[in-house]
């Protein structure tokens, strides 16, 4: 194994979980999240001679993942290869408290762009300008999406539908 391969292997170990988690936050599907993460890492591997010298190679992989997700959203279909040969995994519930489950349920109901903005802002801790660059949107649009997304979450948290979900969990 070459030095570059070893370096990539370390990079993989450090980044895979994070990328997969990001994929899940964007899709709510661990199978798709796995697909997005592996895809991003394969593309990063191909560009590794160039990327390994970056200050933050993880940011490159994240950008690839987000671009891929956008492309899938645009085509509005799941890649055939995600289904072919993939054995369906049983659902794994994240370990959340009641409020966390309510909030996550509300996030999953957000429109895709609002959800992506909130995930990149609050999970990836990216500044709005960076989110705008990643999503290919004007900064003003990102600010507006974030504002509306949070407002929607606040409204959802207090709604009768969410009270019903809470009731089912307690």
């Amino acid at each position, binding site marked *: 194994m070459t030095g570059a391969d070893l370096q990539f292997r370390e990079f993989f170990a450090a980044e895979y979980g994070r990328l997969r988690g990001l994929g899940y936050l964007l899709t709510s599907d661990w199978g798709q999240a796995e697909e997005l993460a*592996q895809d991003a890492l*394969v593309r990063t591997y191909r560009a590794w001679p160039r990327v390994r010298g970056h200050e933050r190679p993880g940011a490159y992989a994240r950008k690839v993942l987000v671009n891929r997700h956008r492309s899938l959203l645009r085509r509005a279909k799941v890649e055939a290869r995600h289904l072919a040969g993939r054995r369906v995994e049983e659902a794994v519930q*994240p370990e959340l408290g009641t409020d966390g489950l309510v909030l996550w349920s509300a996030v999953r109901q957000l429109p895709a762009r609002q959800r992506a903005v909130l995930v990149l802002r609050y*999970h990836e801790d990216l500044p709005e300008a960076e989110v705008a660059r990643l999503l290919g949107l004007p900064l003003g649009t990102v600010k507006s999406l974030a504002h509306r997304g949070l407002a929607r979450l606040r409204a959802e948290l207090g709604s009768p539908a969410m009270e019903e979900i809470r009731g089912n969990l307690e």
Partner: protein
Amino acid sequence: MIEDRLKETLDRVAGGGPDEAGAFDRFLRHRRASRSRRLAGATAVVLVAALVSAVAVPRLLSDSAQPRLYVTGAAGPERWMTAPLVAVAPLQGFEVKVPAGWEASATWKGIELRPVSPDLRRHLGGPVQLVTGVLEETYNPAPNAGKDGTYEDLHGGEALPRALTRRPEGHQSRGNFPGDTRWFRTDLQAGPWRTTQWHISWPYRCQPGVPCPALLALRTLKVVYQVDAAAAAEVDGLAGRLLGTARPIANAVKGQAHAPRPDCADGRSMVLRRETDDSLGSASYGPVAHFWWWARTTANLVPCTVRGPLGVELLNGSGRRLDVQGNGRTVTSVAELPEAMTAPTEPGRTELRLKWLNWCDFGGPTWMRWIGAPGPGTAFPVTAPRCVDRSKPSRLMLDHILR
């Protein structure tokens, strides 16, 4: 503030999910599949789309009127058919003509043959076996015989695990059958009995779009038998005929459909192991207690599906079920057991894991009993998980299935 709660929730959600074990193996598979797709886009690859049953796919041999013995891979009692006949084994990827004077029976790993004549039968130590196996590159007559550009290169000299293949014992010889099929043979003499193994390289073609692990390049078709001097020439002749005329079918032919997989049989097409945190020495009264099944393919490389029901029953000291949600839960359809993993020398494996959470009843000892293979379901003590939240029920749930 909602921003803080949102961040905390998103972080916890992202941190959940299936076990990451095997992620790099999947990456390697993904990378190869990606490379293959790019290659396939540049050449016209026409795949057989219709999934015709593999037993119907093989071309008929010239003696098409002969009866056929089908090998389905399922374990079962012997059923002997009198030759001449054609034995068809799509899971093993071969079709052979069995000559008159012999009887054949299908087994989970191939076919067995015995002489019709009781006199001759006395000179054999048991049935002659025609099966698939794996032989290290050093001895394999034609390693990578099935190489079609989708195999990783085997790392020269890297030894396969002993559990998967053994260094051949006895006198070794090599040669060619008519038609230039290369063979490798060992003969081990012990008293009046000679144990002989003949190998020819036998390809394994993975299904379209599935990268083929390197280990499958070492598949062989072999004949194994034990004879004394009186029967040696006749059985040697039979072995030569079987291997010299065997035809590849199903998973030995590029583009052909693979046969439906039978259920894996522990001790035959798979080795199944069960473990707990206690048995692994990792029980720590933490928030979670785990229960595992590990299945691994065996050297015969017979494709199969791990099927349950597999489960766990949690009990008190009197043998009554504990008040745990999901107690006694079983998983029926576990996974197709891969023939091999993407690491060059790793046999196929899969893993099923259950987890038990939040046990808050301190009224007595906790026991468990396995549900499903292998072995009897005797109850034994198990370390319970720590109580985390008294307001919530204790739960037994599926943790992951690793494929």
